[in-house]
C-alpha cells in the first residue's frame, strides 16, 4: 500500500472472544450446534480477558511500527454491550472491545495504552506521515507532545500553504515558506518573483524522498520566473530591454527545496540552483505569513549570543560546525498558546549584510503579520548556486513568555478591512466609534482595566498624533478633516482607520492587537 501511494486505515477493530469462523465452514453444517454456544453469558473469565489484552497489545505494537502509513485506527463501537458481535452471526454475550458493559476499562485498554507508550512510561515522540491528495501533499506529525499538520502545494513550488498547530486546530499560517526574489539592474529595470504565486511557476513537483516514523523528507523542484518592470524613462533603453526581458520570462530561476519534517520542527534547505545569466538578482526574502487573528503581537526577536559570520555551506550541504549560535531568531507566539520559532541555520554566503524583518499592516485579509529573512546576496559568489537553511521549531509557549491574549469586540468584526472589491465602509469621519476589548493573562486571570490602552489613527494623517484612550472600553470620535489638504484626501479616496490596543501582562510581557477599517469618503 505504501508503494501504491495509499494509506491504511484499521477501520472496524474488535477481537471476538467466541471465535465464529466455523459458522461458514463445510457448507454451514455446524450452525445448529454453534447457535447454542454462549459460554460467557455471565461474564468473561479473567484468563480470556488477559489473552485478549495481550493480543490487543501485539496489534497496537504492530500498528505503531507501521504508523507512518496508518492514517487511523477506529473501533466498531465503544463498549462490549454495543458490539455487533453480540448478534452476529449468532446470538451470544460477547466481549470484543476495550470497555466493558458498564463503560469501565478492561485489561485490553491498559494493554493498548501501554503499547502506545515507551518503557519509561513517557509519551512517545510524534509519528510523521505523508498523504498525497490531488494537488497537495499533507504532512502530519501526530501522537506526541508536539503535533502539527502542513499542507504542501505541489504545483506552487512546494509552498506550505497551510500550517495547523496543533494538528487538530484551524490553520494559523497561510504561507510558511514563501521565497520572494528581487533585483534591480542599473536603475533600468526591476525583477520581482514569489514562489507562492501561480503566475511565477513554470513547472513544479514535490516528491517524498524518504519516509520514516521520525522523519519525512520531501524534495521540491521548480522553474520560476518573475515580473519585470522597466523603470528607465529613456526610450532607447526601453527598446533594448524589450527583447532581453522576453527571454528572461521563460525561466528566471531554478529552485530546489529539501523539506525535512521532524516531530517538532521543519528543516528547510532552499537552493537557487540556477539564475538566468545577467538577471539582476540582489535579494531573497524568506517569509512566514500568519493568518489574521492567529498571532499575538509582533514576533520576539532573540539575538544569538555570538555574532558569527556564517560558515559557508555549499550546495552539497556540508554540515555546519557545532557551537555557533546564529543571530537571527524570531519567536512568533500564537493566541492558542503555541509558538513558532524561525531561525536561519546556514547559508552559502556571508550573512553579515542580511536582516531579519517583521511586517505588520493592513493587507489582503485584514491585519497581516509575517516574519522572515531578507538575504542580501551582495556577498554571494556570482553564477554559483545560493543556499539558505532555515528551521521552524514548534513548541508550547511557557507561562513566562506568553503575552496576554487580546480580543477586540467593538468595532464589530464586520467593519474589519478585508481588501475586497465593493467593500462598504461602516463609518465616516466625525462618527463616534464604540471601543471594547478584553485581555486574558497567560495564567488565565483577566487583565486590569488600567493596563489596557488604545491608539486611533487615520491613515492620511499619520503625522498627527494618535487619539489615545485608556481602559477596556470607551468611545472615540473619528477626527474630521481640519484643512484643505486633508479635506481633499478625504474626498478622493476611502481612508483607513487603524486601531491599536496595547496590553500589559502580569508576567512583564506586552501584547498589541490591531484593527483596520475603511472610513467612507466625504
Amino acid at each position, binding site marked *: 500500500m505504501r508503494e501504491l501511494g495509499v494509506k491504511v486505515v484499521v477501520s472496524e477493530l474488535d*477481537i471476538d472472544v467466541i471465535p465464529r469462523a466455523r459458522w461458514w465452514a463445510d457448507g454451514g453444517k*455446524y450452525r445448529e450446534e454453534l447457535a447454542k454456544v454462549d459460554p460467557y453469558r455471565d461474564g468473561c473469565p479473567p484468563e480470556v480477558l488477559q489473552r485478549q489484552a495481550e*493480543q490487543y497489545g501485539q496489534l497496537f505494537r504492530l500498528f505503531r511500527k507501521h504508523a507512518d502509513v496508518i492514517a487511523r485506527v477506529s473501533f466498531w463501537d465503544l463498549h462490549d454491550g454495543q458490539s455487533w458481535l453480540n448478534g452476529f452471526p449468532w446470538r451470544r454475550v460477547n466481549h470484543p472491545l476495550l470497555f466493558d458493559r458498564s463503560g469501565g476499562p478492561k485489561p485490553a485498554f491498559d494493554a493498548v495504552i501501554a503499547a502506545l507508550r515507551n518503557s519509561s512510561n513517557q509519551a512517545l515522540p510524534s509519528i510523521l506521515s505523508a498523504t498525497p491528495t490531488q494537488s497537495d501533499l499533507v504532512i502530519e506529525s501526530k501522537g506526541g507532545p508536539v503535533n502539527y499538520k502542513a499542507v504542501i502545494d505541489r504545483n506552487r513550488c512546494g509552498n506550505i500553504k497551510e500550517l495547523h498547530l496543533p494538528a487538530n486546530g484551524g490553520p494559523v499560517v497561510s504561507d510558511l515558506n514563501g521565497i520572494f526574489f528581487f533585483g534591480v539592474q542599473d536603475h533600468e529595470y526591476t525583477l520581482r518573483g514569489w514562489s507562492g504565486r501561480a503566475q511565477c511557476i513554470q513547472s513544479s513537483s514535490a516528491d517524498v524522498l524518504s519516509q520514516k516514523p521520525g522523519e519525512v523528507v520531501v524534495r521540491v523542484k521548480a522553474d520560476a520566473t518573475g515580473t519585470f518592470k522597466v523603470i528607465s524613462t529613456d526610450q532607447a533603453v526601453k527598446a533594448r530591454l524589450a527583447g532581453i526581458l522576453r527571454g528572461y520570462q521563460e525561466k528566471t530561476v531554478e529552485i530546489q527545496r529539501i523539506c525535512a519534517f521532524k516531530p517538532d520542527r521543519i528543516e528547510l534547505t532552499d537552493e537557487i540552483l540556477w539564475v538566468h545569466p545577467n538577471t539582476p538578482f540582489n535579494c531573497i526574502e524568506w517569509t512566514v505569513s500568519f493568518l489574521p487573528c492567529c498571532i499575538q503581537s509582533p514576533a520576539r526577536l532573540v539575538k544569538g549570543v555570538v555574532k558569527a559570520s556564517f560558515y559557508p555551506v555549499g550546495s552539497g550541504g556540508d554540515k555546519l560546525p557545532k557551537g555557533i549560535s546564529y543571530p537571527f531568531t524570531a519567536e512568533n507566539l500564537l493566541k492558542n498558546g503555541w509558538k513558532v520559532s524561525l531561525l536561519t541555520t546556514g547559508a552559502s554566503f556571508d550573512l553579515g549584510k542580511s536582516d531579519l524583518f517583521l511586517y505588520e499592516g493592513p493587507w489582503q485579509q485584514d491585519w497581516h503579520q509575517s516574519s522572515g529573512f531578507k538575504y542580501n546576496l551582495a556577498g554571494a559568489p556570482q553564477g554559483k548556486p545560493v543556499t539558505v537553511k532555515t528551521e521552524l521549531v514548534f513548541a508550547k509557549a511557557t507561562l513566562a513568555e506568553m503575552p496576554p491574549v487580546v480580543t477586540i469586540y467593538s468595532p464589530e468584526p464586520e467593519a474589519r478591512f478585508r481588501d475586497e472589491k465593493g467593500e462598504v465602509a461602516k463609518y465616516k469621519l466625525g462618527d463616534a466609534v464604540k471601543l471594547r476589548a478584553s485581555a486574558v493573562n497567560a495564567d488565565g486571570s483577566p487583565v486590569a482595566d488600567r493596563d489596557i490602552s488604545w491608539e486611533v489613527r487615520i491613515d492620511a494623517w499619520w503625522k498627527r498624533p494618535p487619539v489615545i484612550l485608556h481602559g477596556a472600553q470607551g468611545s472615540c470620535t473619528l477626527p474630521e478633516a481640519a484643512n484643505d489638504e486633508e479635506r481633499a484626501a478625504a474626498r478622493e479616496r476611502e481612508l483607513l482607520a487603524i486601531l491599536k490596543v496595547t496590553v500589559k501582562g502580569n508576567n512583564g510581557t506586552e501584547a498589541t492587537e490591531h484593527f483596520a477599517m475603511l472610513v467612507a469618503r466625504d
Partner: protein
Amino acid sequence: MRRRDNLALRRLEVVGHCLVWAKDDRTPPWFFRDGANTAGRELLLARMKAHIDAVAGRYRGRIAMWDAVNEALDDGTNFLRPSGWSAACSEEFIRKAFEFAHAADPQALLAYNDYNDELPAKRAKLIRLVRSLREKHVPIHAVGLQGHYEIDRCRWLTSRPRSWPCASWA
C-alpha cells in the same frame, strides 16, 4: 447536523460509512430494477451518482474520510463479489463511486473498505484492485482493513500461543 457541529467544536473528526455497500442484501432491490427488467449500467450509475451527490454533498467539507466503497471483493474464486453492481458494471462501479464522491466532497479522503484482507487470496485481490484504481488515477486515498479479528486467530502477530486452544464448547 447539531451533533456534527458539536464534534467540530471538540475537534473530533467524523468518518462517513459507507456510500456504496456492494452486496445485494445491503442495497434495496428496486435499485437494480428498471420496471420489469434489470437496471442497465447507465441507470445504475445514475442512481449511484444521485445517492452520492445527496449524501456526500450534504456533509461536504465536514467529513474527514468516506468509505466510498465497502466489501466489493469476492470471498471465493471470483475477483469481484457477484452482485447487481458487478453484473451491470464490472469494476467500473468502484471507479465511478470514487469519482462521484470526490466531485461531491473534494476535501474528504476516500477509502476502499473490506474484511479478511489478511488472508492471502483476498489480499492479492485487494492489491490488484488498488493498483488498477491508482493506474487509472482514481481518487482513492486509503484502504480500510476492517479488523474484525478473533481471539487466538491473529496468526500474523509475532508471538502466539504455542498451541491453538481447542474450544471445548465448539
